[in-house]
């Protein structure tokens, strides 16, 4: 393969995310353990760690917004419990992202597990906020808080999520942005 062809392929790969910015994006965010917690009404707070994977219809979202689907969720509390998506449903986390960054998941279907116990539950009206990257073409941060009225020993359970692009995703994003910047610089030079 000639150097020219390889260079063109590499350039195409680098430029693809920017050129296709309005297509569906799959984004994996990692929880910031320092800012993600699970706090029962009574009892000690726990930290939360893990990832959530999103399928976003178009960035930046135009008009009334775009689809914002949680398609992967793997959270672990420091107490040992895990939170994932309900595997019985094909689409357990369908939501919308407004141009303002507001997120709404009308019903989020979760599965909680600890040891051998499995509990499926639905959380109505989950809201959150997305902080966009430059130009609205990427997700820089997601914040959300869920309050579960347990009625049990723990009382009200508050789950706070602060999620950032994974290091790998962030690196890819940086490369894409750099490529964009380089292309812009070349255009400037031609003028």
């Amino acid at each position: 393969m000639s150097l020219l062809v390889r260079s063109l392929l590499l350039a195409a790969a680098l430029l693809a995310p920017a050129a296709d910015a309005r297509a569906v994006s799959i984004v994996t965010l990692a929880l910031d353990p320092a800012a993600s917690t699970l706090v029962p009404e009574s009892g000690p707070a726990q930290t939360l760690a893990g990832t959530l994977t999103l399928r976003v219809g178009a960035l930046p979202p135009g008009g009334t917004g775009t689809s914002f689907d949680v398609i992967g969720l793997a959270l672990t509390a420091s107490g040992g419990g895990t939170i994932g998506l309900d595997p019985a449903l094909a689409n357990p986390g369908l939501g919308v992202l407004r141009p303002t960054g507001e997120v709404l998941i009308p019903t989020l279907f979760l599965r909680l597990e600890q040891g051998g116990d499995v509990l499926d539950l639905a959380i109505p009206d989950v809201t959150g906020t997305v902080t966009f990257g430059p130009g609205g073409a990427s997700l820089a941060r997601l914040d959300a808080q869920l309050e579960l009225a347990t009625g049990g020993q723990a009382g009200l359970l508050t789950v706070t999520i602060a999620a950032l692009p994974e290091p790998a995703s962030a690196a890819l994003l940086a490369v894409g942005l750099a490529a964009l910047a380089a292309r812009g610089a070349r255009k400037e030079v031609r003028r």
Partner: protein
Amino acid sequence: MSARASVALLAAAGLLATGVTVAQCPPPPVQREYRVLPGHLEPHTPGSGAPEELPASLPVQRLLGPSPDLNRVTVLRHFLPKPSGAPPRVILIVVPGFLGGATNFTPLAEQLVRRFNGNLEVWAVDRRTNQLEDRRGALYGRARFEEGDIAGALDALQFYFPDVHAGPNPFPNNPGDADVDEDGVLDPPFALPDALGGTSAFQQLGSDDVRFVAHWGLDTWFRDWRILVDEARAIVGPSGLVVFGGHSAGTGFSGQFAAYDFDPGPGVDAGHEHIDGLLLLEGGGPGPGNATVTFQVNGVAQNPVPRPTSAAEYDALVAQLAAPGGPDVVLSSFFTIPLAQLGAGAELAGLDGHYRYGQPSFASRVSLLQSGALSLLLGVPMTAEMPVALFIDDDFSPVSQLSGSFGFSDDGPNALFPLFGTYLAGPAPAGGLRSWKAFDDPTLPTCPPNAPDASDGVGCAILDRGPRPAPTDPPARWGTTAEPSDLRALLRNQFGETNFLEWYYQAGRLALDQSYGRDSSALGDESRLAITQNATMDKPVLAIGGSNGLAPTEASFASYLSSIATPPEDREIFIAEGYAHLDPLTAEDNVAVPVIVDWVNRLLQRKLLGAL
């Protein structure tokens, strides 16, 4: 920003918060509310106040008082309040099928509401004629059963089914006498207080008692249901979902509702413009109709007449129905069984089975079960849960429109009833009682090793009906039959705020209107009937069939789906393998639930994005 959910099964919360493993917790209790709302103002109906108003007959007054208002629409609401107080985002309105009542939908509704944790409500409709059911005996009986007052419970049976000497129709081998309390005395009919301040026995209504029903056409039904749709829309808002649907014949009614033009003038106000999706459960939707109309008189079919093609012809037939002595306006019998008695009997048998499961049946003492067609099916000594079980289980019921898979009975000989391909239960050995084996009993008989023709005296609860037909093949049953439905839940749903069977299924006017199928343009007058918008119906449709039911394959829905404007990608079909006709409504751990949940989720997302 926050989301707050009431999660009654949240031992998980404690689990996650403390790291303590917690055992299974009870699911959140779904609440029910029976709502009676002002319905469409049909002028001939008692209580309308219009010049055309017809009087309520004395039997109707005994039930509903001297000045009843029958322009009402009733619905059984299944819901779970959200702790935030916010309204649900989705309301599913469902219509039962032939002889069906609102509680047909209860198990499905409870699973859907619980699954959405309050973000979805299910409103199950009772048609207008439900108001005519004389449920005094059932309510009295329930109170007595609750108190453990057996003599009182037997009085409730004698309210509907008084003792009979020599039996009304001792066939084929019954003793002919019905002594419900077995006191050796021919007791008089038991009477209860009525709405006129006196006491009276069971008010079993005939068509001449309710001639105003001749004016309850599909137009009246749909305008009643439109009231519900509008209320639901006001609750969920413009970005929420109102989904309409039905079961069995209710799929036909719901499809016709979607096709209805509510604009009384030349404009168009299509029903489908007010809903966001259509859910068809074990029924193929509205058909193309018939060229003729057949009325019945006292249950006897009359000569068919051509379907009217003008308002004058249509009005003439309605006038026949409204005239005393005219054709039946409510179905008088079903398999020779007086329908109102069947409804009352089902409710009593439900009470008996619920409160006295496993004990000798009281309900089978009554004349209805000891004579005529029911004695063939229910004529052997049995336990209290058995009359409902044998009447409705797909292995024993001769009526596939009413059957589900609730278990089996194999503690006595079974024989094949060739006419229907179902089993007849013979007497238990040594004078014992036939009893029921629940749906989740691991010893339910399978074929093989048992014989489908019951030549082994047992037969099969579970059998293989063969490979799945191709989507374009004619509908045929296939797959391994399932036993997903719980008889105990069915017994419980026979009684309460409302019930499972419809005692007065409309005839006459319904036959007239149904002759137009999914397009009443041939009538040429939208002021009588306006099913004119089927071709413009473009909302998403989810059709669910049962491979052992009446809509067993994709082809079951082809006629309707090909008649509407819904794009192919929005026509979804799911066939639940092994499910009989009622199972999509009555199954525990219903396999249709995740399918419906996913469909609703996708519709809601589209709605929020303005793409629906």
